[in-house]
């Protein structure tokens, strides 16, 4: 398998630049070419192209990968639970290379200035078209793992329409979903009905009769073989997001249903079985070890980007990153109903190097036009890097928490551990687009309530178990709830109820009293009827007043059990 070599090829393209740091953007542009990024020695007769977790991002963005992304149980220290230098070493990626920039947080600010923005559906379209032209349409499937129709001002304001309109130029063959469902049952149904490709979800049933609510799979003929693509939506959508928005659908991992569907498509003659999954990487790793007969799982949800395929038994797991940063290509040589050979490449969509596809660029311009004035409006500046990803904190969330504390006059702020949200470089203006990239949801109300110290601990324990339960089937993905005005320590290896300790009210330095009531402001409540102003309004007001924000690294969470 040449995937390691492919990575090194990209590395080699930038290896010569390593002498001095930071090197110039002009130099990076000169050395990185589209041809090199797309270079691929084809294998077999089938190519799968995979995108996932685009989160409403139509144009190139900055996105810092996490510095803390811990795995527990069997996943401990295993990909994707590697960050920074450990990640680079594990995959043989040269420091400061384009891949290092795209895949890790190391020297992010300097490398962002050198390599520029990444992503954009117009860049993805260029890659898709190039691969289809090279391989022939009859050999290529493009699959969208979902979390596509949410995550930006445009996606929220148009209720997913801008994304659906642009994605169709990418010509997906199938998709599945998660945040899509937060558009509400009626709207998501309307959008799905408008697609000219199937929305697959073997794990959703109607709540009334417990019968399948979506097509479980679709059969394709590509490269001379029958391919079954099965869809798996995010199993905990009605738990992690408001259930009242999708009251007639019940989700779940439904491992037995997956097993039954695999058997069914194999019997129907599928020579290649692909699971287009929104389970999250660790859930898929476990599923692959328990459900036989799946050749490829295209993973998503946990936003992992891996430059190599992870093999579990005979199953190949692909992780294609988030926010449109990557498109992945997996070539497969399938003979006798078995994968004989494969080659994989995670292609970073470096916007300076990859040309924009004109058709898609026009579609994006049209989709963004109604919001253009809003999107580009400058609210303030930042002195420090604003980012979200990380198991326990991110500076953008610290900023949001500061805004909640101030604008709602609260003692403690809670901000959900979402993994989506783009980054803003130090010295950059913060625009309305940046604020919405971190907050655009359909249930944005900022509540203000009294919570006892005991209740706060319960919340932290509950969320920590979603992240650190050693059995991946009990994990929901997402990161730890972000806290403003509250410090704590966490031992990730303890069971639920005993992970969190030393809870401290930061303003007074006093320990959190279980019996005392605290005024708490937070957003993204899953409860129906939550009242309050939308979070983006408070964040905008706060930044406008501050003019320039400085966010210090968060030191209020002490982590142990690593």
């Amino acid at each position, binding site marked *: 398998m040449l995937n390691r070599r492919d990575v090194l090829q990209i590395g080699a393209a930038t290896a010569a630049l390593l002498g001095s740091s930071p090197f110039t953007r002009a130099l990076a542009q000169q050395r990185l070419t589209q041809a090199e990024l797309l270079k691929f020695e084809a294998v077999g007769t089938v190519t799968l192209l995979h995108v996932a977790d685009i989160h409403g991002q139509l144009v190139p963005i900055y996105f810092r990968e996490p510095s803390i992304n811990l795995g527990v149980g069997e996943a401990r220290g295993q990909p994707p639970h590697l960050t920074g230098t450990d990640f680079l070493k594990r995959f043989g990626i040269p420091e400061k290379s384009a891949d290092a920039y795209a895949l890790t947080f190391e020297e992010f600010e300097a490398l962002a200035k050198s390599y520029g923005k990444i992503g954009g559906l117009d860049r993805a379209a260029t890659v898709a078209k190039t691969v289809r032209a090279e391989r022939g349409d009859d050999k290529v499937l493009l699959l969208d793992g979902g979390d596509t129709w949410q995550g930006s001002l445009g996606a929220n304001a148009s209720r997913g329409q801008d994304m659906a309109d642009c994605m169709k130029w990418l010509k997906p063959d199938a998709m599945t979903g998660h945040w899509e469902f937060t558009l509400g049952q009626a709207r998501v149904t309307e959008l799905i009905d408008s697609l000219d490709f199937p929305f697959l979800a073997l794990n959703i049933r109607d709540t009334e009769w417990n019968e399948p609510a979506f097509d479980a799979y679709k059969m394709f003929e590509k490269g001379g073989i029958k391919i079954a693509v099965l869809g798996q939506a995010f199993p*905990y959508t*009605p738990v992690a*997001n408001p259930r009242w928005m999708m009251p007639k659908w019940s989700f779940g991992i*439904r491992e037995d249903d997956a097993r*039954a569907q695999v058997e069914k498509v194999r019997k129907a003659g599928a020579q290649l079985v692909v699971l287009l999954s929104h389970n999250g990487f660790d859930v898929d790793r476990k599923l692959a070890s328990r459900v036989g007969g799946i050749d490829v799982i295209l993973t998503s949800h946990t936003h992992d980007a891996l430059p190599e395929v992870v093999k579990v038994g005979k199953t190949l797991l692909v992780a294609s990153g988030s926010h449109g940063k990557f498109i992945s290509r997996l070539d497969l040589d399938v003979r006798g109903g078995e994968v004989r050979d494969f080659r994989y490449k995670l292609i970073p969509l470096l916007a300076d190097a990859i040309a924009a596809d004109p058709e898609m660029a026009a579609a994006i311009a049209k989709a963004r036009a109604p919001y253009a004035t809003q999107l580009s409006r400058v609210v303030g500046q930042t002195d420090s890097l604003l980012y979200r990803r990380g198991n326990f904190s991110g500076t953008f969330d610290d900023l949001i928490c500061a805004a909640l504390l101030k604008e709602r006059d609260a003692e403690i702020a809670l901000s959900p*551990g979402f993994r989506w949200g783009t980054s803003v470089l130090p010295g950059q203006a913060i625009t309305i687009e940046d604020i919405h990239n971190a907050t655009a949801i359909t249930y944005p109300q900022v509540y203000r309530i009294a919570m006892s110290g005991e209740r706060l601990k319960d919340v932290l324990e509950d969320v920590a178990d979603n992240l650190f339960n050693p059995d991946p089937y009990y994990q*929901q993905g997402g990161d730890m709830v972000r806290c403003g005005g509250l410090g704590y320590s966490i031992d990730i290896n303890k069971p639920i109820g005993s992970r969190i300790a030393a809870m401290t009210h930061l303003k007074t330095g006093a320990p959190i009293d279980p019996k005392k009531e605290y005024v708490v402001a937070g957003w993204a409540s899953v409860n129906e009827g939550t009242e309050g102003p939308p979070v983006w309004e408070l964040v905008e007001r706060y930044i406008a007043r501050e003019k320039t924000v400085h966010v210090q690294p968060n030191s209020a969470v002490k982590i142990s059990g690593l």
Partner: protein
Amino acid sequence: MQNLSRRQALTVGAGLVTISVIGWSGQAFAAAKEAADEITKFTGGKAPDKGKITIELPEIAENGNTVPLSVSVDAPMTADNYVSDIMVIADGNPRPEVATFHFTPMSGKAEAATRIRLATTQNIIVVAKTSGGQLFTDQKLVKVTIGGCGG
């Protein structure tokens, strides 16, 4: 796992002789001992074998107030050897006995579906008894969350 269609679910319902579904009293939570006592009462103190039972339950409940449960036992249903009773125990509920399903050979299948209420994260224990006195058991952990911060 069976994908219970509407018709199948109704058939299952019709096949049952009686179902006794017991709500909770809202009083103090039962200790695991109370659950164990119920099981002992059902088994007569004999240790059940693990297996034969398929429990369909979510790993994490979408709504603790109404959690879909279906259970089946892979055993013959003939006149002289059939699954006669399936007991469902929730070991963290105030009253742990959730339901006991009773079958006859006429039931055709030892299979039942209902919705149960779970107060908190807990094990759902299923014990099945055959007319010949064989006992089987299995269990599954269902997590009931308070949060909602995934994504």
